[in-house]
């Protein structure tokens, strides 16, 4: 691949001169889920772009960078409208501030929500530069145009660079409704660009949470309670530590009563001058912990309860016709139960945060997905005024939803306050797996009866899982929320005239959170495997069967109203499925010993179809090839979309093949990568990706690639002769 590269100059000591042209824009955003997105759903002015008199364009990225390439994409959008030269653009990371609009980098919606505001910012800056040039030349602005980082007046062959014009432009009014470029004139949007941090990453110069060192900073190594809800009662520090000059002390943090939310859990922090001293002493502490109601939590027992739940009628979310009596009276029905386990985000960078409390203010540097929620959470937990809390995201060494939850930041703030010096909290992998906000386990039960033509005439589907709401909102909110169910369940594209869609929730004894793709992971699994089972029963090809089910269908309505312009269109789902059919050679003769499996899913307003090819001779059914087709509407960085689909296949395979977490006596039984098995290089198939050329509104990219992976693998294993596998992990 050869794509233009943008040097990331952000570490150069670049100052925007006071007369720099700064363009404000307006950001209107909606929450990821209406129930607890608590931060900034307001109309507010924000600042995304500045042009310096040295000609350097600074684009401020207010979303967190965790590998999804958002810094690059934001720059592409602004740069395009501005007609700036890619080589003269630097990207700065914004701190948490409501003036930027929503910063909750979650739910695959940075481009979806900010495409227009960012274009407006770039276009407004362009119009101001043109206006400044026109005024200085005494010509009409309409006779001038911007391109290549300069404004040109063709009639008189005059040009002025953006740098030359910045001062004059900076005193002009910001146009409220600048004219946006038309699609055919885009020169950055839709193209491939290497990520702005690529060179820094490849030279070890990229800065993540643990890479910042402040003067006089102490390191805190955390020992967390084995069971959620326990607090330390007694701590014995080893004798050897007492003579260690690099050991500072231990601090205890009690479990917060009430809703779990983002509060710190019970822990003992070992404070030291350096990381290893902290680790060494942490491993030798003897700690007794208080009892917790969660100490009887057992994931096997919990799974059994979920199984029982789907044998009973649940809360009915959708009912048409008379599915229940038809199924109960049918001579033959097809029934299947699908199960998925607890999973962990396990980003490669374990949580880490730096806090510096000075009297009544605090500065935080940490890999957080939402610096505003982090600020608000600090304000809620401590007695700081919001304006005295500054939170700046570093790069995130992976996040996948984990770093939306700032519990680890609160630890750093609390410890810095007590120690009166800057503190870096460093979690180890063991802490990370033990105190994740876990991906919920689930059980789904599907039942259908088929008519003469093999198509369903009655259909009942039930899902049971612990709701995220029971962790982040209130413990008594156990029923799955509408937005969780609209992740592949209540908005299922598999419809029938007699249909019942039911759900049940149970509270777990551990924290539940959102992991990349959230409930879509298990719902896409159940639905896509069940459809393959029905196709087999009907004696039809799995792709043909799906297409037949969608015959004559137009729009799918879930539990929540669709966002305007983002209706779930069957036509687009059909299109990605038909494309992947061609790309994967589905109807061709397959190489001996190979088998293909398919799945297709709509999530985060995008459409993805995936075909996996497995090696049938391998007892573990190694995936040899993957074909993915993505329709995410208008996209910004083509190569990033491809990379996200590639990464999603591997991420999906981790969960599909081997990853599983279990709990006994309230404690996790896996503590590192020897117990929690992540896909490695030999597991990574060759992956081809097609992006659908589309002028629909931009939709999600980071998450929608994951859900089809596990069902496509299960379906491929079946076709390879490995039997119907209805429970994750599959091998």
């Amino acid at each position, binding site marked *: 691949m050869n794509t233009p590269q943008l040097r990331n100059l952000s570490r150069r000591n670049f100052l925007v001169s006071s007369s720099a042209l700064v363009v404000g824009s307006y950001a209107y955003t909606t929450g990821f889920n209406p129930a607890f997105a608590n931060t900034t759903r307001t109309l507010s002015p924000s600042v995304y772009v500045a042009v310096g008199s040295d000609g350097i364009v600074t684009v401020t990225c207010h979303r967190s960078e965790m590998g999804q390439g958002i810094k690059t994409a934001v720059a592409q959008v602004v740069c395009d409208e501005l007609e700036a030269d890619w080589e003269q653009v630097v990207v700065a990371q914004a701190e948490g501030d409501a003036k930027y609009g929503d910063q909750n980098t979650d739910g695959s919606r940075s481009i979806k929500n900010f495409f227009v505001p960012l274009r407006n910012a770039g276009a407004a800056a362009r119009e101001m530069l043109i206006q400044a040039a026109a005024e200085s030349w005494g010509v009409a602005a309409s006779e001038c145009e911007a391109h290549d980082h300069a404004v040109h007046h063709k009639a008189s062959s005059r040009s002025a660079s953006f740098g030359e014009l910045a001062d004059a432009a900076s005193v002009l009014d910001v146009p409220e409704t600048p004219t946006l470029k038309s699609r055919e004139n885009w020169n950055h949007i839709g193209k491939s660009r290497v990520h702005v*941090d690529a060179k820094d990453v490849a*030279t070890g110069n990229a800065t993540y949470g643990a890479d910042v060192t402040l003067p006089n900073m102490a390191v805190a190594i955390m020992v967390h309670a084995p069971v959620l809800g326990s607090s330390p009662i007694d701590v014995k520090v080893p004798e050897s530590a007492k003579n260690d000059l690099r050991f500072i002390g231990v601090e205890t943090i009690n479990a917060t009563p009430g809703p779990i939310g983002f509060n710190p859990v019970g822990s003992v922090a070992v404070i030291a001058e350096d990381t*290893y001293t902290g680790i060494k002493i942490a491993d030798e502490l003897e700690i007794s912990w208080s009892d917790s109601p969660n100490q009887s939590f057992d994931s096997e027992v919990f799974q059994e309860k979920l199984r029982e739940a789907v044998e009973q009628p649940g809360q009915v979310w959708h009912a048409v016709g008379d599915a229940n009596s038809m199924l109960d009276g049918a001579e033959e029905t097809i029934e299947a139960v699908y199960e998925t386990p607890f999973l962990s985000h396990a980003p490669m960078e374990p949580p880490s945060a730096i806090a510096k409390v000075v009297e009544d203010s605090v500065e935080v540097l940490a890999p957080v997905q939402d610096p505003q929620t982090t600020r608000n959470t600090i304000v809620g937990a401590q007695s700081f005024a919001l304006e005295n809390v500054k939170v700046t995201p570093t790069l995130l060494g992976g996040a996948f939803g984990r770093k939306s939850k700032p519990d680890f930041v609160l630890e750093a703030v609390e410890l810095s306050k007590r120690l009166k010096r800057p503190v870096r909290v460093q979690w180890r992998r063991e802490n990370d797996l033990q105190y994740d906000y876990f991906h919920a386990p689930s059980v789904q039960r599907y039942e259908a009866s088929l008519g003469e033509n093999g198509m369903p005439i009655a259909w009942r589907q039930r899902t049971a899982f612990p709701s995220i709401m029971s962790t982040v909102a209130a413990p008594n909110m156990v029923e799955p929320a509408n937005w969780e169910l609209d992740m592949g369940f209540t908005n299922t594209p598999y419809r029938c005239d007699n249909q019942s869609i039911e759900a049940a929730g149970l509270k777990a004894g551990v924290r539940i959170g959102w992991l990349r793709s959230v409930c879509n992971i298990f719902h896409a699994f159940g639905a896509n495997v069940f459809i393959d089972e029905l196709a087999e029963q009907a004696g039809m090809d799995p792709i043909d069967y799906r297409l037949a089910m969608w015959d004559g269908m137009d729009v799918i309505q879930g539990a929540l109203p669709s966002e305007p312009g983002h209706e779930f269109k069957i036509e687009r789902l059909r299109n990605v499925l038909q494309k992947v059919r061609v790309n994967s050679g589905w109807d061709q003769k397959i190489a001996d010993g190979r088998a293909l499996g398919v799945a297709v899913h709509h999530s985060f307003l995008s459409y993805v179809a995936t075909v996996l090819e497995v090696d049938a001779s391998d007892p573990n059914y190694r995936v040899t090839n993957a074909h993915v087709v993505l329709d995410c509407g208008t996209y910004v960085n083509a190569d990033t979309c491809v990379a996200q689909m590639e990464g999603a296949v591997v991420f999906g395979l981790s969960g599909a093949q081997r990853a599983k977490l279990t709990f006994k006596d309230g404690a996790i039984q896996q503590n590192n*990568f020897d117990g929690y098995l992540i*896909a490695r290089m*030999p597991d*990574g198939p060759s992956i081809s990706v097609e992006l659908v050329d589309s002028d629909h509104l931009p939709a999600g990219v980071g998450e929608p690639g994951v859900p089809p992976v596990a069902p496509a693998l299960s379906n491929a294993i079946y076709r390879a002769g490995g039997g119907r596998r209805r429970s994750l992990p599959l091998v």
Partner: protein
Amino acid sequence: MAITMNVNGVEHSLDVDDNTPLLWVLRDHLGLSGTKFGCGRGLCGACTVQIDGSPTRSCLTTVAAASGRMISTIESLVEQQPDLVDAWVEENVAQCGYCQSGQLMSAAALLATNAAPTDEDIDSAMAGNICRCGTYGRIRKAIHRTAEGRQ
């Protein structure tokens, strides 16, 4: 006890606990934060450096064991194998990037001993380096690209 070692061509003399893992000496004492902490147990490869040219997990290597040896870290790679760094950028390998120092140091060691690695060679040399973002396909491509460029 004072320990001496050569890191990226510079001699260092350090007064640290013998059992301190090299990872934390690099990061905390020498300010070389390019080498990353991922698991602390030799399971993920994020901390990979080269000791006398061999890819080594610095989280499991004590500073005493590294004493007197030649250590190279990601910070020196751009001088040692600039074409490998370039290939990583050109293939746009990194997503979050956190695992990539370790990936690059393993890849550099592979290429130093195997001028034209096959996919199988890459799979076995790189199996100890986890990438949670799933950049394996691009890592393969960047290694092949570098090898081809050297032919």
